[in-house]
Each structure stands twice: as structure tokens, then as C-alpha cells.
């Protein structure tokens, strides 16, 4: 289990210059071909985003009348407004999703920091065995535990509650613990000893010395956890019903089945679900790209 992350190599922030550019000059025609390939790929990648956003801003009348590829004329916010304020209540869905993402991220990352530090720096009996158990839970696929988790939430009376939505993900992620352990092991023992000599206990040392020194990895985990929670679908679909605790992905799916064919409305929903993440991505582009390279996870 330990091998996967070792194979991941740090991604330079900027692609290095071509190594052989000076010696074996690439013919201009080859370069042109490569650019053409890259641009076609980029167009195929961006196309669906742009087309769906365009559709979102059309009136249903224009969409019915004109070619699906026509530009919005006029640009209309009717769909968005009716989604957010209407019975679909996307305003609430966005709020619930945000609350879920922030709650899970804060607790999951904090509890993972505690465990990662214990594995990296506290020499307690049974440490290796415990770490092995933690790692082996990485093999359990989410879809396998969805059924028992649902039954547990029903038994606990937590079906269709906020707690039902967040509890399974609140207490830690084995993968985050693994990454934090690796990072903490890189912190020099002197720094920790110095803090201990000043009379700080383990928790003080962790909060005041270790965590500030580990900002990059913690920021990475925060971003990745936020993104994966915002995107999560299967668990919210299973554990919630009705609009009270409906998250944005579930709201989009149910709108899609309810208003099948009403594409301007449905594309407004996907745009609302996608835009916050796209903004987050553009803001933290470098960090997120690096995070993916480090963690290999969404």
C-alpha cells in the first residue's frame, strides 16, 4: 500500500524548456502540428463548458426556436433566478453543499493531522500494526460501504439529516493521514525537541510548531477535500430525500429527471454546480494542479 504515493513525483510549477531544442531543432511544421493538436484538444475540453453556459443564459423560447449552437440573444438570467428562488431551491442546495464541504474539511483535516502526527512522531506501542490497519482501509471502495452506512443512519435516526450527510467523512481520511505522516516525518527532530524543552506538551507543539511548518500540505488537503465534498453525489443521493438537505449535485440530478428536455433550465443548474469550482480552480490553479500530482486524488 505504501508504494503508490512514492511513485508520484513533484510536478515543477512550470514546464522546463525543451531539452534538445538547441541541438535537434524541431521543424516548424512539427511544432505547428503539435499546436494544432493541442488546440483541438483544448477546444474539445472547453467546448462542453462553454456550450452549456451559453444554453443556461438563453430563454427557453430562443432555445426552442434557434439552432442549439446560437449565442444567447438576449442574455437572460430568467433560468438562474427561477432556479435559485423557485421551488427547485438551488439557493438552499448551494448553502447545504457549502456547509457540508466546510464542516467535513475542517474536521477531517484536523483529525487527520492528529493521527498523522501520532504515526510520525509518537513512539507508542502497536504503532506499526495500527498504521497497517489504517492503510488497509484504503482498499475499501465507497460503493461497497454505501449500503451498510445507509442502514446505520436509518437505525440512528440520522437519515435525511445534516449529521447523516457528514458523519461518515468527518473523522478522518486514511489517505490524508498517510500524506501528513510522510510530511511530518520530514520536520527536523531538533525543532520539536526545542519546543518540548520550552515546556510545551504534545498538543501545543503540534498546534504551535508543527502545523505552521506544514502549511503547504495542509492547504493541499483542504483544497482537495473541499473539491471532493462539493462534487460528492452517491452518498448524499442515498442518505437524503426531499429538498431540506439536498446538495447541489443531487438537486441537479433530480431537476434533470423532473424537467427532462427543459435544457435551458437544466444547463443553468449544471452551470451553478460547476462555476464555484471553476472559480476556485482558477484562483488556486497552481496549488490544485500540484495537489493532484501529490495526492493522486480528487
Amino acid at each position, binding site marked *: 500500500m505504501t508504494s503508490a504515493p512514492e511513485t508520484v513525483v513533484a510536478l515543477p510549477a512550470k514546464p522546463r524548456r525543451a531539452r534538445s531544442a538547441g541541438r535537434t531543432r524541431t521543424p516548424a511544421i512539427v511544432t505547428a502540428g503539435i499546436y494544432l493538436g493541442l488546440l483541438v484538444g483544448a477546444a474539445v475540453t472547453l467546448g462542453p463548458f462553454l456550450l452549456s453556459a451559453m*444554453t443556461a443564459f438563453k430563454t427557453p423560447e430562443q432555445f426552442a426556436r434557434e439552432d442549439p449552437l446560437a449565442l444567447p440573444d438576449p442574455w437572460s438570467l430568467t433560468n438562474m433566478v427561477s432556479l435559485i428562488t423557485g421551488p427547485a431551491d438551488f439557493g438552499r442546495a448551494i448553502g447545504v453543499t457549502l456547509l457540508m464541504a466546510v464542516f467535513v474539511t475542517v474536521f477531517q483535516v484536523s483529525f487527520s493531522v492528529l493521527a498523522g502526527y501520532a504515526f510520525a512522531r509518537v513512539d507508542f506501542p502497536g504503532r506499526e500494526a495500527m498504521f497497517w490497519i489504517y492503510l488497509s482501509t484504503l482498499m475499501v*471502495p465507497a460503493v*461497497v460501504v454505501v449500503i451498510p452506512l445507509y442502514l446505520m443512519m436509518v437505525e440512528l435516526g440520522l437519515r435525511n439529516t445534516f449529521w447523516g450527510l457528514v458523519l461518515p467523512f468527518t473523522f478522518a481520511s486514511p489517505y490524508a493521514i498517510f500524506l501528513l505522516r510522510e510530511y511530518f516525518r520530514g520536520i527536523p527532530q531538533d525543532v520539536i525537541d526545542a519546543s518540548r524543552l520550552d515546556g510545551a506538551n504534545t498538543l501545543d507543539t503540534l498546534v504551535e510548531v508543527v502545523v505552521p511548518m506544514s502549511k503547504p500540505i495542509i492547504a493541499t488537503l483542504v483544497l482537495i477535500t473541499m*473539491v471532493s465534498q462539493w462534487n460528492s453525489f452517491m452518498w448524499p443521493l442515498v442518505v437524503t430525500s426531499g429538498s431540506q438537505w439536498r446538495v447541489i449535485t443531487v438537486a441537479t440530478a433530480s431537476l434533470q429527471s423532473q424537467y427532462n428536455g427543459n435544457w435551458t433550465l437544466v444547463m443553468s443548474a449544471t452551470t451553478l454546480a460547476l462555476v464555484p469550482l471553476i472559480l476556485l480552480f482558477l484562483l488556486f490553479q497552481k496549488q490544485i494542479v500540484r495537489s493532484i500530482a501529490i495526492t493522486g486524488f*480528487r
Partner: protein
Amino acid sequence: MLARRNAITGYSLLAPSLFGLICFLVFPVLIVLWLSFQQWDLISPARFVGLDNYRSVLSDPVFANSLMVTAVFVLIVIPIQTVLGLLVASWLTRGLPGSLVLRTIYVLPWICAPLALGVVWKWIFAPTDGALNAILGIRVEWLTNLDLALPAVCAVVIWTNVGYITLFFMAGLLNIPEHVIEAAAIDGASPFTTFWRVKLPLLRPTMFFVLVTSVISTFQIFDQVYALTGGGPQHRTDVIAARIYFEAFQTFDMGRAAVMAVVLLVILVGITLAQQLYFGRRTTYDLSS
């Protein structure tokens, strides 16, 4: 004394995560195993039925179809996205201006909600007012045609993953020491030969990582299938994860769904362990060469 204090400190720090792991991962796996021997529709009480669920699921043509669909899905998606990722990565590591922006664009689908992207593509594939048929000037029922539905779902997943795969191959390519490439050039190797005989073998660790993680995640695909086809038409895109979901939460046959979950768990643990054995061997080989 110190040992005891360390034990207390260690286990106090582990307490929250240990609680979470046991309650929400280990315990659920045990429940799935227990459930697989029960008949339960969530209404009448659960009843022990021995191996009946296993017999019923393993002889069920619908489940056999799901295994087949998932296998075909993995066999289409993995090679195509790996080759495309490698190709894009080799293009983006040439130091051409604009590479950074292009890399960002390619990664974009990966960070977006697969469910929302699935819904976007459902519109794109829509027969009368969808974008794809409008662009191509044809009228094809992409998602309801028996032969086109699975390739269409595969295309969406490949479209989502290529940028992610590219990132890893970029890192791998940039990590190849410059002198190795120079040596190949001095020996008169063409760029093509250099790629096949020098770069590709050196990319082996990256290749393993990419293949293993993407095989495991492709086996569990759900969101896109739910949005695009719901497993249809006629079960043609009914991947395992979708089958488990429908069996549990639409048919409410918990016992049968649990058996399917156990089968998926066995397959994925098998893949992980096999990759551990294989990878361990390969790493040693790499160091010695």
C-alpha cells in the same frame, strides 16, 4: 513511565480517526458480509438465507452482464485515456509557449463534479436539440442506441480523465535526466526511437501508478452513468456500481446488493494486492538495473 505516557498520547491523538475508521469503514464492511447472507427488503425483518443470495446473484444474467459491461468499459477507457494522456504530456513538456495555460484547461474537467458533467453531456448527446448532432449535422440517438450508449459513456469518462493522466506523465517526463536523452541523441536515435526505447521504459513507475489508480477508479464509476443513461438502454451501460445502487435503493433487495458489493470488494482488493506484488518486484528490478 515514558512508554506509558507515549501510549496515552499516541492513542489519544488517534482516537477520533480510529473511531471514524472503525464505525464508518471496518464495521460497514462487516455489515455487508452479514447482509449478504440475509434476505431483507427494509420492511419485513431480515431473515438468514445462507448462500441463497450468492446463488441467486452469481447465476443472474443481469449481474453477469454488469460484470461484462464494467470489464468492457475498463478495457475501452484505460488504453485510450493512457495513450492520449501520454501524447498530450509529450506535447506539453516541449517548453512551447502557452503550455501552462493549456495544462490548466486540460485538467479542468477532472476537478468538476462528475454528476454535473454527466448532465451537461446528456444535453450534448440529446438527439434533436443537443450540441453534438447540431455540430455534426446528423441525427443520432447516442444514448439510447444499443451499440452507441457504452462508447458514448466511455467518451465522457475519457474526456474527464485525460488531463489528470497528462499531469502524471508530464511529471514523469520532466523527471527523466537530461543526460539520458542527450546520450540517446548522440547515439543517433530518432525522436521516435528515443521515445519508445528510452523515455517509455523510464516512465514505468508513472505508468504503473496511473494504470492502477485509474483501473480501480474506473471499476467504481457511477455518477456519469447515473446522469447519462441510468444503466440503460437494456442494461448496456449497467456498470457494477450502478447495479449495486439500483438493487439496493430501487429494488430494495439488500441481501443481493450486498453480495454484489462483496464481489466488487474482492475484485478491487485482488487488483490492489496483485499490483503490490508486481510493483514490489519491479521496483527492485529498477534499482538493480
